[in-house]
């Protein structure tokens, strides 16, 4: 019977693999176009000059980032070149400080520390760190915390001091702000919209 012939199954293995690879290639071309900065799901890096919110969209039945009015970061408006430079530096901070082995980005990484996908929008910056650091803005509070995490602990599990410079901290804050504006199909669900009790 042909089903007992290895050659029959070899043909099946080759054809199914090729078909799937071709489909993956087409989907990849489309996906890369969607996720490049300025694509349908990923904003330009200059989105860091805008207000970003995360709101429930009843039409798609999921939470989505909403880009609002102008909102300069660290009191300045970044040109496209400056924004790109800041993003590059911010990403290098993330890789060189090994952030991904405690935190997650888009839920990927390690699970010892909070997910940073929408960290820019976390109410804790206003509620906890702005008073603690006596910073006037959210970005100042985040930058100060990133440089001196040991001075502003919020619970017994602490972030170590990774000798992040002021320039690196600002770039990292910009990166987190940009990342919060990425359309992530509703992940994490109702981030920042539930008042928890402790």
């Amino acid at each position: 019977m042909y089903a007992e012939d290895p050659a029959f199954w070899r043909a099946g293995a080759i054809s199914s693999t090729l078909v799937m690879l071709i489909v993956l290639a087409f989907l990849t071309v489309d996906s890369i176009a969607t996720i490049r900065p300025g694509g349908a799901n990923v904003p330009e890096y200059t989105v860091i000059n805008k207000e970003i919110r995360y709101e429930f969209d009843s039409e798609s039945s999921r939470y989505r980032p909403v880009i609002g009015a102008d909102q300069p970061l660290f009191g300045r408006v970044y040109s496209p070149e400056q924004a790109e430079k800041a993003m590059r530096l911010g990403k290098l901070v993330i890789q060189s400080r090994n952030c991904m082995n405690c935190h997650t980005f888009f839920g990927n990484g390690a699970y010892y520390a909070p997910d940073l996908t929408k960290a820019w929008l976390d109410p804790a910056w206003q509620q906890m760190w702005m008073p603690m650091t006596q910073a006037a803005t959210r970005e100042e509070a985040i930058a100060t915390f990133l440089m001196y995490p040991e001075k502003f602990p919020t619970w017994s599990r602490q972030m170590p001091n990774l000798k992040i410079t002021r320039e690196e901290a600002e770039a990292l804050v910009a990166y987190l702000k940009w990342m919060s504006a990425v359309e992530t199909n509703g992940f994490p669900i109702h981030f920042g919209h539930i008042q928890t009790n402790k």
Partner: protein
Amino acid sequence: MFRSQQLALKYFAAAMTLFGIMIVAGLLASTNYVQDGFLMNKLDFSVTKMLHIDTMIIWLLMGFIGAVYWFVPIELERETVGIRLAEVMFWIFCAAVAVVAAVFIFVQYGPATEMSLWFINQGRKYVEAPRWAAIGITLVVLVFIYNVVGTAIKARRITGIMGVLMVDLIPLFGLYLIAFPSMTNMSEDQYWWWWLVHLWVEATWEILIGCIMALALMQLLGTSRRIVETWLYIEVALVLGTGILGLGHHYFWIGTPSYWLGIGGFFSALEPLPLLGMVVHAVYDAGAHRMKTTNKPAFFWVMAEAFGNFIGGGVFGFMMTLPQINLFTHGTQWTVSHGHFAFWGAYACGVLAVIYLALQKSRAAQQLDGAAWKWSFALLNIGILGMVGALLVSGIAQAFYERAMGGSTLQAFMEGQTNVWFVQGIVMRLVFGFVFAAGYVVLIYDLLTIGKKRTATEALQARVAGGPA
């Protein structure tokens, strides 16, 4: 014994050493969950966790490479081509791993420059090794490919298994090149990073271990080539037929289009099929040969591989893969539970089976049995099942309290991590981690001693044959 097989034994020794380092690093990392501030500013969680994961990748890779160096001369009936170069690359590989581990432990991180990525840490999970070391790994794999393909050409013989193996080495090498670039855009970075991680772990490696298990079954149970090759092709068809687009389950939440929710969910739901096929194959073969074997430990580890791969990879993966569930489970201890079970079942058990097979041949033991392997088998499997169960409890608690109820913020994260069920699970994970470590100690004792002591019959036979008694 061929030189290629002696090299295989060296690879197995290196793999088992790294297996031990992986366990120590895992115990240190998991202690952080139980005791906050453990080794803070000395060996932070990020360092021990990275060591845990990277040594796992490297020891499994070394196990696969060793297994292929073991089987190639048997399959092609000649010495591996370029064996001297392969021996040199082994020592370079070991030296590179030692230097990278030392840099991870003592330097840990650097400033935000390309130089840090070249010489300290690339900061991308699974492929943290700095670029210079990644180049070294690339060279090792290239020499490995040259050895395998060169031997097949010289032998003028390509069996079905060797054909699959050689084609599989192309993505094994090609996908690893994704370890090098550092992309600014996190969405694009993770898009390609998953090609490397998923298409290695859930496709290329699955085929590789499928080839290795096919060769092992022929040696272990005397299964006919026609049967193992037919099953291997079915596995390739199903693994790649479902796994290539199963990649989509990593594209739910990274900025990629929403059609991946349907595609990824559908194909990853089918991913357990080939793993179920492997269980059927293993059980069928074991039954057909009435479970008669001269190498019981290898036989049991093969069975553990078949069931562990299906349950750990297939069932536990399916449990959390549909996007409606994954929205809550993604990036929680639930994922960790699946990860531990899958890597153990799919790969670690298979490598251990091949090591026992190789030891039987290299020590010329007619029978491989005893008490120690049973203890290590039991302790390691109870240890892993305990850890998997405990992490699942923690993961479910985290999914409910942090994600569903809390909304995933820092406050919700803290509440999830301090939830009593989460804490109980995470403590029990550490307890079972020590059980697992005890199993490792017995395993090493067994690997060092099993088959060395000959029975009276074997000694007599050896004397009759003129060999050492």
